């Protein structure tokens, strides 16, 4: 039975590969998290900065439309 257990690394790789498919998750946010994981830069500071950039980019686009 224990032969089928995932290692920690496998769990992480599988989780972030499927993060976009999690119910209720915004695609842009999920992509930020996955991208940072794949680059080996998944920290809370990096997540905060990337999400802030997303918000600013979104409000910038909105301002242009207005």
């Amino acid at each position, binding site marked *: *039975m*224990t*032969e*089928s*257990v*995932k*290692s*920690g*690394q496998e*769990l*992480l790789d599988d*989780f972030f590969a499927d*993060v976009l498919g*999690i*119910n*209720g*998750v*915004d695609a842009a*946010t*999920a992509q930020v*998290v996955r991208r940072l994981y794949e680059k080996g830069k*998944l*920290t*809370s500071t990096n*997540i*905060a900065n990337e*999400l802030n950039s*997303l*918000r600013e980019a*979104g*409000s910038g686009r*909105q301002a242009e439309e207005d």
Partner: protein
Amino acid sequence: MAVKLKRIELSGFRGAKKQLDVSLPAAASLLLYGENGSGKSSLTDGIEWFYYDRVAHLASEEIGRNGIPALRNRELSDDEDASVAIELTKTGLSATKTLSIERDRHVSACSNSSPDFESYHAASAAEHLLLRYRELLQFVVFTKAEKLAEISEIIGFGEVTKTRATLRKAANDLRRLEKAKGFDGQISRQQADLIDQLGQNVATEEQFVAAAWDLLAPLDLGVEVQDAASLGKAIAAIRSPADDEIIQMEMSYGNILGAVQAVRDRQDQCRSAYLGYRKKREALLKDAEKLANLRLEKLLTEGVSVLGGAWDQDACPLCLQSKSRAKLIEELRSRSSDLLALRKEREDLEEARSAVGSELRELLTTAESATREHCLDADESVEIKAEVERMSVALASAYDTVSASRLLDSVDLPEDLPGPDMSELEALVSSVEAIKTATGKRRRSDQRFVVAEKLLLAKRAYEEIASLRAEQDVIRRQLNSMDCIYREFVKKERETLSRFLDGISTDIKDLYLFMNTDKRIESIRLVPVGDGDEFVGVRFEMTFEGVTISPPEMYLSESRVNSLGICLFLASVKAFNKVNRFFVLDDVIASFDTNHRLKFGQLLCERFADHQILLFTHERDWFDLMARLVKGSGWETKQVAWDDQEGAVLRPAPTQPKEAIANRLAKSETDGLGNEMRKYLEGRLKEACLRLEVKLVFLNNDHNEDRMPGETLPGLISTLKRRKCGLKDEPVLKRLLACGFVMSRASHHSSYSPSLGDLKAVWADIMEFESLLVCSDKCSMIGTSNVDAAAGTISCKCGTLKYGWAQ
């Protein structure tokens, strides 16, 4: 293909003064006997150092962290190398590791630098390859946090735990940001302004247009306002550049008013968060032991970061001792994980500081934005400008105080949050409201101006509400997503960890019950211990006759706790050793009684037949028992002995007692032979009593083990009679009772000296007795494990010997 050992050679390493060369043809398993101090554990040390760059049991403050200084044989000169050479079944992976002295430092080198070997070595370092007696109890008696750390280490969950913390923090950062932004307060203020201007609340564009039309209609502009475009045209018709300038000033004052109100309204919230942080910090600073450990934790964490980044040498950056960088990182992580509970406390404190910092940062941003409003350039705004700047400076001071505070230094924080004075803020709100109202006063006799003013201010408030709501929605969407990601991650982590624990629990139970046949044990489990959504530990639970007990060492004997430790090791070998198919057991049965030793031997032979086992022991009885069990199975049996000239040397395995006796009879060597025969018979009788569940009077401690034929033989005969077994009437049993006299007298200094003929007769009886119980050396004795209740028979393992056996 799983890798096994073909050869191990030590040279100048530990007890091997010269060379200790152990060849394992066809990757055979090895049963190695060696008395204490003979040097057999040098082989274990060599394998440990080869694969893990350390010898843990030698690590101490005096010797050094990894025991390295103790590895070279003490008689080796400084210009000679100590070495461990390992030849493996897979081509290209064999290597020789050397330990030399260079400029008073121990320097290790490896002969194989190929990518395949590097990859194999790194993978092997994560596997469980050896077990020593002293390590048996370790896991069983670990605290629950230590068990979780060990399990996490075994299955590589260190990064999983770290990632969970990262995701949780990211979600909490967003939660804090939303709270700090104070959207609800800002929206409320804008709605109040909107109502003030329009005389009613509006939620949609249609409602805004309708409310605007209510204001415009009395002006008789000759235009119909039905939508935003026509409203815009109507407003343009009543505006003038001069009026726009006044209204812009009012809007600017409005921005300042909003900022000051925001600071005023959230001051208490900030103060409360600050006091909470201060209290937690003070409590931690008062606990000197916790403080010392937390300071160490930071060093360990930073060490991992440094080693993973700029430092690329295989040496400790502090003491410069040679050390594999990968191993150093592993050790630091292991020590760091010991401080799990303290780390949680520290994280809580950091969270509290971040919460206060976030609030203050938002207020500071708001205040600084207010200082840049153009209305403050007006002459009439001088005093307000000074007050707004003072508010901003006070907030900056508060923010600096909190963000600069070190969590673990002893500098006290101010008792109260330094920041703007509440009464000054109230006064500033009044001043700004007054000046705002006064700004358009001279034009309010003009109805067109009044309507334009109201509509523009209302439009600004309406747009600001929409902007705030949009910003709030984005943050909430991101926060919901991070919460979903975190929850799903925790779920997956729990599922995987629980599955691992369930799986390995099943294996542990299976192995344990093989060794300890006790039908009263219903389950043995490693159970996760949680604190909310986090795992904080793992504990052993045993269900015994419907009652769950934890920890098991409360009720189990030392022998059974040790067997639990062995079962965990063997279960983890099965689960996680993917690269190597060998393991070493070095003197692990020291506390086992005879029953456990036999079962343990059978466990290894039956359940790990596909593994290469290196089994070391200093106990002759156990060695002999195992030698019988593994005979004909392809195992190598050898002996390590100590030679004053050579150090640890390899010799042929000690002759089995049966062969030794037969050889001596053949050579007519009678001296001491009676004693050897007696010991042999005692061993066989004890085994027979064990297998046939013969009941004997209980004796304390070792006396229970020291049963003479005078006790065991009558006990055996009694059991055979009770079971109506065909053996009960065998004449050899009575002859053995008589043989006891011969062997006893021959074992002591007495006037009676048995002749060769006497001894041959005794031996023939012993052999006949043995042949009744076991058909060959490759089979097992008849025993209750081979009882056919339906047929009422008992047999040897292969069934060749079979007798009646009443229930």
